[in-house]
């Protein structure tokens, strides 16, 4: 059974269903709007079930690619799919967040609902495709085309400055991507293969590696996003609808880290080693500087967006530490951040849906009206800070441990970032949740309803379970991470 193709293209069945509704019914017909939501939900849940099946069948002791599918195409290209320990959990994360996004948009999206659901389902297909593609051109197709649905999601269903944010998002990412495309073409020209597993074992000349690494860096650093090319992210987050922010922070940012682990490290080890100090410097700046920037924000979403940049700093640091602990920590941090930051944006969405503002000063004292919400928000704030017992802690401690042996100073400075994150996250929580209600508009704000509880329950479970049982993830990633590191260390002679 070609399970990877099934997972990738299953959402398109939902697209076909909604398109049929659109063609044979009227766009604004409440019945077809309702039906489109259910179609999207059922499709994403089915995809989730398939993804769970994939992870269950996954053999954690095999460091290579599993569930391979290959078919010849044209011009020496192949349709090739497969997953290893690095990518398999991202497939699950994507499938896990999508139904949550659909439910979160159930009432918040009022115009062009059918198109909205189609955009999300297509996005799911494209993101899965990025993680399971084993042909580099095929990878690029999924990677690049993902920009379009996100561009439309921000541009059509976004806030006040949505057009500006959508353009900034698209053009920033596109510029990075075309440089990567040039590098991809050069790699195919040199090695005469477009297969990712073959490219991973091909030895590029170190001088060429430097250029190729820089081109890939241009793309992944923007996606990540790393300081100083992170400025598109706060704009995109603020203007995107809630579910768009969840997908952006939860999954799309992970494409950068995944790219570093899949391409930069194994394919250009010498260049990666050469540029490690640069990455460390940028990571530390991201951790410290953007944490300070986050502290000064007046918009809740912008604050969380900046905190994402800071957390991604840990990821890049861990990846380029070149140690098994660092890689595992980076993977864990990405998955955990996918859950926690997604949940935080949903928390913002809850109050935004009620009050239609994200200004921190507007709120204050809502704990008296929304106790359940306050508890939920507290849990994810703690996860964001990296409190032991939540999944946020594991990733941060592992990346820092992994880096400590390689560059002590980097790890020490990065550790201060944990303190800074407590400063901005807790002060946000205090200003929004605690205190007494001053703003009369907040007087009859309602607590979480059942739909919102259903959204948060799986996220809470994931945060806590991964916090106390990180082995669930580590077992799956171990073999591939070790393999990646041993190949890397052998190549740089360390």
């Amino acid at each position, binding site marked *: 059974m070609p399970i990877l193709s099934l997972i990738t293209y299953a959402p398109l069945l939902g697209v076909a269903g909604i398109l049929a509704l659109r063609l044979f019914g009227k766009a604004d017909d409440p019945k077809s709007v309702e039906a489109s939501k259910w179609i999207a939900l059922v499709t994403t849940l089915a995809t989730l079930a398939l993804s769970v099946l994939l992870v269950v069948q996954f053999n954690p002791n095999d460091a290579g690619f599993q569930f391979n599918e290959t078919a010849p195409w044209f011009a020496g290209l192949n349709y090739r799919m497969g997953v290893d320990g690095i990518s398999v959990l991202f497939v699950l994360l994507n499938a896990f967040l999508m139904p949550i996004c659909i439910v979160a948009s159930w009432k918040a999206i009022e115009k062009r609902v059918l198109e909205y659901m189609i955009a999300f389902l297509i996005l799911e297909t494209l993101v899965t495709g990025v993680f399971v593609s084993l042909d580099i051109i095929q990878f690029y197709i999924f990677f690049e085309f993902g920009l379009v649905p996100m561009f439309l999601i921000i541009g059509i269903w976004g806030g006040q400055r949505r057009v500006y944010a959508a353009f900034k998002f698209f053009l920033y990412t596109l510029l990075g991507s075309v*440089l990567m495309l040039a590098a991809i073409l050069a790699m195919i020209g040199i090695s005469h293969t477009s297969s990712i597993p073959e490219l991973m074992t091909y030895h590029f000349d170190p001088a060429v590696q430097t250029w190729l690494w820089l081109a890939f860096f241009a793309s992944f650093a923007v996606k990540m996003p790393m300081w100083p090319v992170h400025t598109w992210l706060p704009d995109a987050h603020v203007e995107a609808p809630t579910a768009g922010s969840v997908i952006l922070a939860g999954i799309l940012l992970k494409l950068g880290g995944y790219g570093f682990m899949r391409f930069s490290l194994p394919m250009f080890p010498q260049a990666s080693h050469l540029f490690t100090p640069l990455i460390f410097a940028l990571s530390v700046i991201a951790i410290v500087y953007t944490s300070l920037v986050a502290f000064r924000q007046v918009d809740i979403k912008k604050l969380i967006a900046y905190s994402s940049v800071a957390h991604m700093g840990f990821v890049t640091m861990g990846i380029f530490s070149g140690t098994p602990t660092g890689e595992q920590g980076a993977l864990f941090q990405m998955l955990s951040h996918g859950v926690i930051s997604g949940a935080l944006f949903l928390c913002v969405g809850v109050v935004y849906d009620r009050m239609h503002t994200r200004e921190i000063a507007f709120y204050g004292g809502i704990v008296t009206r929304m106790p359940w919400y306050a508890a939920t928000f507290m849990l994810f704030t703690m996860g964001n800070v990296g409190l032991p017992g939540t999944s946020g802690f594991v990733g941060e401690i592992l990346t820092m441990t992994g880096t400590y042996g390689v560059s002590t100073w980097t790890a020490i400075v990065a550790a201060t970032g944990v303190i800074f994150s407590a400063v901005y996250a807790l002060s946000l929580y205090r200003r929004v949740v605690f205190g007494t209600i001053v703003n009369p508009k907040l007087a009859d704000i309602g607590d979480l309803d059942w739909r919102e509880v259903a959204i948060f329950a799986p996220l809470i479970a994931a945060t806590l379970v991964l916090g106390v049982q990180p082995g669930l993830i580590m077992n799956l990633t171990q073999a591939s991470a070790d393999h990646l590191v041993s190949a890397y260390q052998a190549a740089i002679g360390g």
Partner: protein
Amino acid sequence: MTFSADLGLAYPELILAIGAMVLLVLGAFAPKAGRLVGWGGVLVLAAAAFQAATGPFGRGFAGGMIADDASAFAQVAIFASSAISIPLGQRWFERRGVHNFEFPVLIVLAALGMGMMASAGDLISLYVGVELHSLALYVLAAMHRDNAKASEAGLKYFVLGALSSGLLLYGASLVYGFAGSTLFSDIAVAVKHGANTGVLFGLVFLICGLAFKVSAAPFHMWTPDVYEGAPTPVVGFFAAAPKLAAMVLFARLLAEGFGGAIPQWQQVLVVLGLISVGVGAFAGLAQKNLKRLWAYSSIANVGYAIIGLSAGTAEGVQSMLIFMVLYMVDVTGFFACLAALKRQGRDMETFDDMAGLFKEQPGIALAMTAFSLSALGLPPFSGFWAKLFVFKAALNAGLPVAAALGLVGSVVAAFYYLRLIKVMWFDGATGVTDTPPVEAKTIAIGLALFTFPIVLGALIWIYPAADRAARAFGLA
């Protein structure tokens, strides 16, 4: 070769020439039979395309005409594109009260000229082909004669086209003078070890003349004005097939005639290509009229095709052929969309006119989105594959700077394609659109489906066909 064998090679052209005459007579004696003439034109083009694909290959008329895989590839594409534009254009003119049978006849004559360009084997048939198709295009551009802008466009096109023909002729005479022959194969012998100054001088003039025809910068000045003024479906026609014909001619002239002087013309083409990409990308940013915008887009796209050609390898020519064929689909489709759109009886030509189009005409808005994304070069649309092979060829030929600058140019151009998408999808409508005519809508949506997903299957066939065609030129 005997005369009858020579004629056998020219069957596609003969079918078109005789067909055009018959249609002209039919139209002259039965003035009401405009539509019949139109379908007759489609039939003639289909027959010619079939003959080109299956017909005998070889060199005839003392080497003046070459029928090979390259000419077959180009002719099938050219005749198909011409055939599509007949129903599109004829109905468009009918709705504007211009009932004439000359339109299909002129398209067939233009196709004849383009067919000759694709199979030209010496400088004389090169010139005859170029002139034949140009004269038909001048008339087509001015066909909407009650419209001042269209007449202006036709005149501008004619004057500048005549200038470029002059350049071509001057270059041809210089090459003839220094190489001693007009045959490409004889010129190749004369420049086997590089071109001397005289031949090079002539070559540069020939390149300039052809650059005019494909509207590569800095010979592009006529393009935006002519595109803006000429009738929309006519623009869709002459932005597509004639460019392919001129590019194939370009490739044959450089590869077969000047294959010994690759390093010499390579640098000219790289500069030409990069200037075109730059002008097309930056000047397009300031446009408000979509026809003008697409003119600049076509300048940039021709720049990419020229970069592919400048590789000077069979791979480069192959990438150029794939690029031009896929681009033809984009541009024809886009102008079919524009031809289909009217808002309260007024043609929709500017960005502002397109506001909120997605709500009113989702089918056409989706098609235009597909064409824009494709022209932007976004995967998996056809334009991505077109650019992919061009850049791959340029990199493999040792032109990494050209490839990198070309890619950066595509990011600049991305802004205006996105702007069109933004206007159609994000903004609110400013008025009600009229019901689009069936034939334009069908063609637009059909071509959009080709851009994606059909292209993914079609490339399996186009790629080797373009490869065979490129090898016919005898490059490494």
